[in-house]
């Protein structure tokens, strides 16, 4: 896929040596060459085709507890050396003189079986937008507005550090999303659906954009007759693939080692403890090919893992990047990620999912006398120190007498991570994943979430009824 390294190994060796000239435990060069493209169809017009290019390197020097970081858009040796000196400037004085760095042979993880976005005719991409627009509008006369977006990115990264690591990867991602507005007697409602995969344009051979559009349209239409959501504590049944965002927020962030080591998580010191219902086995897994949070090496050059975080309710491990793993004298779990070369890496989730259970999803609903059935979740947010988290519904229904009945207007759910995880009393077999964008400390990265239909015996639903 990539015949040359972004930066030649001998240049990298000289830059890493220069970064450590004042001392320091580790120096790292993260180089990135990213190209993105997007197209937007709005109000029946192709409004915007956009292309972007971002290329540069971030250099960090870790000295004891301190990290110095500088970045540059200049990938020449001169530009890299200047950034290396800037990053080294925070390292303590009195280093041990000249340090030579010898890199291992390059391990290149780029995959050849992906259709690179820039090799696809723009007219073909636009045809997808039009097809989705037509499908959404055909779903019902009440659909008054449709916005269809697609985007792709090709990101080449190269990581070299003074421990000798040298790795390169090419990550290709493709996304497609539809937002519909439906207009009825009670006002306007919105419906959203997206597809996002770590794959090239070939993804559209397996997924029909009409399906994405129809789901978005149906979601908006259903809510036209929606009544206000109840308020107070209610049993909740989450549909399979409705958004594993529940686990992402309820415990995922709290299991990131940077929060743990600062004692800023309710899960600090809980390894080996029962922190969830025995039905909960939670995994973070960057290796799931094609999922939105998938990659061959993380942004520190380490291979991702299938990391079991909670097994049968018992907390087994946290997620680690290089810096936090080093403090504990262990290895990175492949969770060191960053938004771009302009950012420092930190502990991030990849694809976080609850393993499927044994029950029939319909049976779970049938055995719920009253409650709320959540077909689709929106975003969420957590305070890792207290464990309190929220997540929003974008498609939900009342459950009455074990049957799904009336649609409900959007609302947030609020709960406390450890409490909610203990209240999961049924998990079904119908596992599915959904893509999302995770924000932390000002950086966004693509992640996947997954879960089968499950029931929580009580969560506070923030409706008005």
């Amino acid at each position: 896929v990539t015949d040359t390294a972004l930066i030649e190994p001998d240049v990298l060796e000289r830059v890493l040596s220069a970064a450590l000239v004042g001392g320091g435990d580790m120096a790292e060069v993260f180089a990135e060459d990213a190209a993105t493209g997007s197209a937007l169809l709005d109000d029946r017009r192709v409004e915007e085709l956009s292309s972007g290019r971002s290329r540069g390197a971030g250099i960090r020097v870790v000295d004891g507890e301190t990290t110095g970081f500088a970045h540059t858009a200049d990938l020449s040796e001169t530009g890299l050396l200047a950034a290396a000196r800037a990053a080294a400037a925070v390292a303590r004085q009195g280093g041990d003189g000249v340090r030579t760095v010898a890199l291992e042979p390059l391990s290149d993880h780029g995959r050849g079986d992906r259709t690179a976005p820039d090799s696809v005719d723009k007219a073909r991409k636009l045809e997808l937008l039009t097809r989705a627009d037509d499908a959404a509008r055909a779903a019902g006369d009440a659909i008054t507005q449709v916005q269809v977006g697609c985007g792709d990115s090709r990101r080449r990264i190269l990581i070299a550090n003074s421990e000798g690591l040298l790795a390169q990867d090419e990550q290709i991602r493709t996304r497609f999303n539809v937002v519909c507005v439906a207009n009825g007697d009670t006002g306007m409602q919105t419906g959203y659906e997206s597809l996002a995969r770590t794959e090239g344009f070939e993804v559209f051979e397996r997924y029909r954009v009409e399906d994405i559009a129809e789901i978005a349209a149906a979601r908006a239409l259903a809510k036209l007759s929606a009544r206000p959501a109840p308020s107070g504590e209610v049993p909740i049944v989450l549909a399979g693939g409705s958004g594993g965002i529940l686990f992402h927020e309820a415990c995922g962030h709290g299991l990131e080692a940077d929060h743990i080591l600062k004692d800023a998580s309710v899960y600090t010191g809980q390894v080996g403890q029962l922190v969830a219902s025995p039905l909960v086995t939670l995994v973070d897994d960057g290796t799931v090919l094609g999922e939105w949070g998938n990659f061959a090496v993380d942004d520190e050059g380490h291979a991702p893992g299938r990391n079991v975080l909670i097994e049968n309710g018992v907390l087994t491990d946290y997620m680690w990047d290089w810096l936090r793993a080093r403090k504990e004298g262990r290895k990175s779990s492949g969770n060191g990620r960053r938004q771009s070369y302009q950012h420092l890496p930190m502990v991030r989730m990849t694809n976080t999912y609850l393993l499927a259970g044994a029950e029939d999803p319909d049976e779970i609903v049938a055995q719920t006398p009253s409650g709320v059935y959540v077909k689709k979740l929106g975003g969420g947010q957590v305070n890792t120190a207290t464990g309190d988290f929220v997540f929003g519904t974008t498609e939900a229904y009342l459950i009455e007498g074990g049957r799904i009945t009336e649609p409900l207007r959007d609302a947030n759910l609020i709960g406390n991570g450890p409490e909610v995880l203990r209240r999961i009393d049924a998990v079904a077999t119908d596992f599915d994943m959904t893509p999302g964008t995770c924000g932390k400390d000002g950086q966004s990265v693509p992640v996947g979430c997954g879960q089968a239909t499950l029931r929580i015996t009580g969560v506070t639903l923030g409706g008005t009824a």
Partner: protein
Amino acid sequence: VTDELLQLAHSVVDRALPGEGVEVYVTRGTETEVRAYEGEVESLTSADSSGVGIRLLLDGPEGAGSQVGFAWAGSLEPDVIAATLADARDNARFATPDPDVVLAAPDGVEAREIDLWDDAVGATPMEKKVALAVELERATRAADPRVRQVSSADYSDSRVEVALASTTGISSSRRRTNAFLSVDAIVGEGADTQTGSGFSIGRGPGDLVPDEAMDDAVLRATRMLGAQKVRSAHCTVVFDQRVASTLLGVLASALSGEAVVKGRSFFAGRIGETIAAEGMTLVDDPTDTRAYGAASHDGEGLACRRNVLISEGVLRMFVFDTVSARRAGAVSTGSAVRGGFAGTPSAGCRALVLSPGTKDLEEILAAVGDGLYVQSVTGVHSGVNTVSGDFSVGAEGLMIEGGALAHPVREVTVASTLQRMLQSVVEIGGDLRWLPGVAAGQTLAIADMTLSGD
């Protein structure tokens, strides 16, 4: 230095071919970010960055209007700029021709000269910036015996210069600096843990007040100790300044002319109607230098101006950029905003402020009598829909009993609709505070909200 950027922008505009319109946005900046932890520097970032964003319009078939394409790059190298221009040109070929697609042209409104630059950001030695973060962390740990942890104590600053030029006669440049201190405190008592954050902002390090950040973080955390979930109820909710600013920021997207012309705002078609409580006047005024979002020019190079959006409860106008204004049969209100060089202009607010009332927090609490005081909200992006108006957010704060703050409350939501909330504003504080984001904050009391708890 900015002249050099403007020249660069013009040199690219000059490469427009016959029948093309070109708009070039170039920017250059530096940033510093220091995080302190346990008395030491945990991380220090120092970096320069630059970028270009180019919009290119092609004349479509006679009468059909123009096609627009966009491209950006994180570099100002000549070969990169040339490639970006070529990408924008290629992208334009695929857009739908549209008579409303035009570049902004000078409209005769004079830009107000405003100074948003503090030389101290560049002149202050790194050691002093580091010391600000380290001292903030130390002082916060020492502020109260219940402070268990300071998970972040940050100093950051930035210098940004922007130049914008176009074939339609736009030629503008501006520059700004920002400095920021922030701290997150974790406090504990027995098994109970609570958190609070505080910050201080300014144009330069000399404007920063570390005690303001520290006091706010510690007070917000400690007063939440012992917080409980409460019974669901209907009540008046008093939002503190920071939350009120967030709420106005959300409302801003419904006041965007672009959302309105595309049928994505519940305000569509309601100009001239009473949509808010009688005393409520909402203005977007980026020419007020106290505002964090202050600017001389908008994202298309037109002069920023004072726009009165809601006057005494009556909806008066929306904010427009050039294209959305044409779609609505209006003119730009100088309200184009763009997310840096990688974004295209769209209509938005920069400096919203409500006409202040006369009461301070204490007087508002006394007037409200019983209700909930909310000091922070969560899930705003997932629980507020500016198309339908549905509003539901996670909240923490204190109950208001007998006109004063009482016991702390957590794990509850407050809900209503934005439409109803606007009509139910019962108090607007006189305690105006300029905050980061697109809106100032002042204490705001809204009646008849649903508090959801047990």
